[in-house]
């Protein structure tokens, strides 16, 4: 590099440092000036570096409208997630994935309608936080039919548990019934997908086994019939209540 240019860079940096230093001094002076009085007419001891009060974060109240918007955003996200699943499964399973996508869209429409009925504005976008933290990393693992189905199973079982975990957050029995209608639908999806995963593929005569897994006989030494681990569907696999972006009602 040309030494003159280097010198110019250095000079410019020194000037910048000077400016920053001056700025900091100015800010310090300003802080000391205002540090002498907190409120007009109330003298206090002057001091440098007056402790800054940290304001409290605003409180977002999650009510039925926000919950309905949240469920809508989750349903829209699940529908979008299954598009990648669909692109990676065989033609025999595409109609099933289409049906799952259709159900999620139906649930989104159901909760959009509920939002409107409650006086809110329906959510129209997938849940951004869950997209970034759950769906995107999961979708990145998809590279064949089996991995796609595993992701589909995770989405269905997690969403089902999540909706179930929201049941009692809704204030009325009618709204609880609505969210569990969606949750039950996803529990069926999860059970069906579990049955087409390799260990249980023989359970679904109407659906061909996954192509990559057909080299081994699926009817010999059958695995347990299906995963029905407990009499009560658990919410342990649900997304935690702080995992969402709760889409707040838009400002009027």
């Amino acid at each position: 590099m040309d030494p003159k240019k280097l010198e110019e860079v250095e000079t410019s940096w020194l000037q910048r440092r000077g400016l920053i230093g001056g700025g900091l001094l100015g800010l310090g002076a300003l802080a000391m000036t205002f540090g002498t009085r907190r409120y007009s007419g109330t003298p206090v001891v002057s001091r440098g570096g007056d402790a800054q009060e940290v304001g409290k974060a605003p409180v977002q109240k999650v009510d039925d409208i926000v919950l309905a918007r949240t469920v809508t955003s989750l349903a829209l996200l699940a529908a979008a997630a299954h598009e990648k699943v669909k692109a990676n499964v065989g033609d025999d399973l595409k109609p099933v994935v289409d049906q799952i996508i259709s159900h999620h869209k139906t649930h989104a429409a159901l909760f959009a309608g509920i939002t409107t009925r409650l006086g809110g504005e329906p959510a129209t976008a997938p849940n951004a936080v869950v997209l970034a933290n759950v769906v995107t990393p999961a979708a990145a693992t998809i590279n064949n039919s089996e991995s796609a189905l595993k992701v589909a199973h995770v989405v269905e079982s997690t969403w089902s548990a999540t909706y179930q975990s929201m049941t009692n957050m809704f204030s009325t029995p009618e709204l609880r019934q609505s969210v569990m209608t969606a949750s039950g639908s996803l529990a069926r999806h999860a059970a069906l997908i579990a049955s087409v995963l390799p260990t249980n593929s023989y359970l679904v005569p109407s659906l061909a086994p996954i192509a990559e897994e057909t080299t081994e006989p699926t009817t010999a030494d059958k695995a347990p019939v299906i995963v029905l681990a407990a009499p009560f569907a658990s919410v342990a696999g649900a997304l935690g209540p702080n995992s969402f972006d709760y889409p707040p009602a838009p400002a009027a």
Partner: protein
Amino acid sequence: MTESVLTDNGDSEATLISRRRAFQLAGAAALSATALATALSSSARAEITLPTNDTALDDADRALVGYAVSLELACVALYDAMIPKVSGDVKALGETLRNHHDVHGKACAALAGSANPNVANATMLAEYIEGFTNADVATAWDVEERMVASHLFLLGVVKGTKGSETLAAIINADAAHAAVLASLSGNPALVEVERTAGVFAPADYAVVI
């Protein structure tokens, strides 16, 4: 450039390059800090207050979950009729589902208290016993679908949150039962996925003690 070339002010070019690199790193760090701050501020943007709707079961709720007990006990009796007629995996599945309904019945009984009828629903039993005795998996599928619909119906009227919590957990378990039995019976498992019809309505399936 790896060679050290002295400049007029005595700094080597390598020094300047490393300084520029340091500024670049500092800039990157600042950006990261900004990103982190943005992420933290977005998470700290608002303190989430989740609703709590703790409501105790009233007498009407207890009567409703008591009705659910009669349905669950009927399921237990139906699977008891099926299990001796099947073998292998289907038998194992039947036993699992039977035991699930037994536990569901006990959970609802605990909530119902004195409103627990402690009898199987006779109307439901009469309607389905033949199909179960003949080990008809499609009949079992139909019952599981109707159990999902019935619990959804009850969820829509029970006000007590302990009741709705239990019913919600049962709904998803029964929905999984239904999907498995639909698969096993060779039916397209998702055709009826949104089914909510077929409720065992208390008016039609009255409990006779």
